[in-house]
């Protein structure tokens, strides 16, 4: 199973990213769970400077922007 983490301190863009990630999981049918990480100390472990960020299986894939549903689905496959 794959793990998607969405890093962000709860801003509007982060919420959109979570929604996109969940939609991408549903559409692609890949077995993956979406976790939202809001704790700043936890977020900083990934050494990012801009949020929202998307982490797939502990690898930072996107930072500082909202990825589209298609983009995340492509990553999952």
């Amino acid at each position, binding site marked *: 199973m794959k793990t998607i983490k969405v890093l*962000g*301190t*709860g*801003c*509007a*863009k*982060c919420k959109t990213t979570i929604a996109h990630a969940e939609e991408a999981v549903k559409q692609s049918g890949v077995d993956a769970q979406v976790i939202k990480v809001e704790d*700043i*100390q936890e*977020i*900083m472990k990934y*050494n*990012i*400077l*801009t*949020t*929202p960020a998307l982490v797939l299986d502990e690898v930072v894939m996107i930072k*500082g*922007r*909202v990825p589209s549903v298609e983009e995340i689905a492509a990553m999952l496959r």
Partner: protein
Amino acid sequence: MFNWLDALVAWLVYDTIGLDATTHWGQALHFFFYDSVKILLLLFLITFLMGIVNAYFPIDRIRSFLSRNKLYGGEYVMASTFGAITPFCSCSSVPLFIGFVKGGIPLGVTFAFLITSPLVNEVALAMFVGMFGLKATLIYAVSGILLGTVGGYVLGRLKMEPLLTDWVQGVMRQAHMEEAYEEEKLTFLQRLPGVGREAWGIVKGVLPYVLIGIAIGAAMHGFIPTGFFEKYISKDNPLAVPLAVILGVPMYSNAAGVLPIIQVLVQKGIPIGTAIAFMMAVVGLSIPEAMLLKKVMSWKMIAIFFGTVAFFIILSGYLFNIIL
């Protein structure tokens, strides 16, 4: 530059819709259509241009550069300039702050970046060009960068490290030089589609604020008589600038929402320096920003930060009133 648009909108509002150019509604509607289209065109253009610059100077590269180079004071100017070219999102200010500290970048330099970032950015610049022209935009951008530089330097001299939250102090003790930034190998043309998508994303994001701002501005433009505010806030009133700043600090809006209103205030008689100082206070400092920063610093430090920046905004307000 926009004569064609003026003619087009006049044809639409006065000839097609049939409103008289001398009526309140006619003036308000003309203002709304003209400004909306003009601002949106400029917004996309400038966001796109800034996007290209940004593709070559992403934030990670800036951090790596500032972390690895000591520039004998030049780092304040660099950090402030980088703050201006990096797109701003208030939700990123805390990760940015920590990331900079982690890279061993001095507190003052980090502040220089943090001050300029919301003040000068692609959205603010685009709207400034549309509303006050190129000369005023240039003066605004330069003074914004100067404000960040001086503000960052002064804050750096105050030695506020003990006022950071404990875990940030821990991060600071473990600070280490960042590795050299490795650029993605992409040609200019390969970057363009991504830059265009980003630019469109930014424009789409601020669109509602721009339209609401312009709508309020249009209503004021059509219905408030010219010179109305002069009765209350005259140029000779020495307290006008500090009052405008103190009023603006707690408020929060981005440049997109507040600038159309600023433009009308200026047209109706508020001195431009006072108006710009108000705008800088609104976009640069706010209660939501303070709440975010609470995660990394004590209230005392936030108060010193806000006080210093507000002081320099007041100074620039007086300066704008003299030179513009």
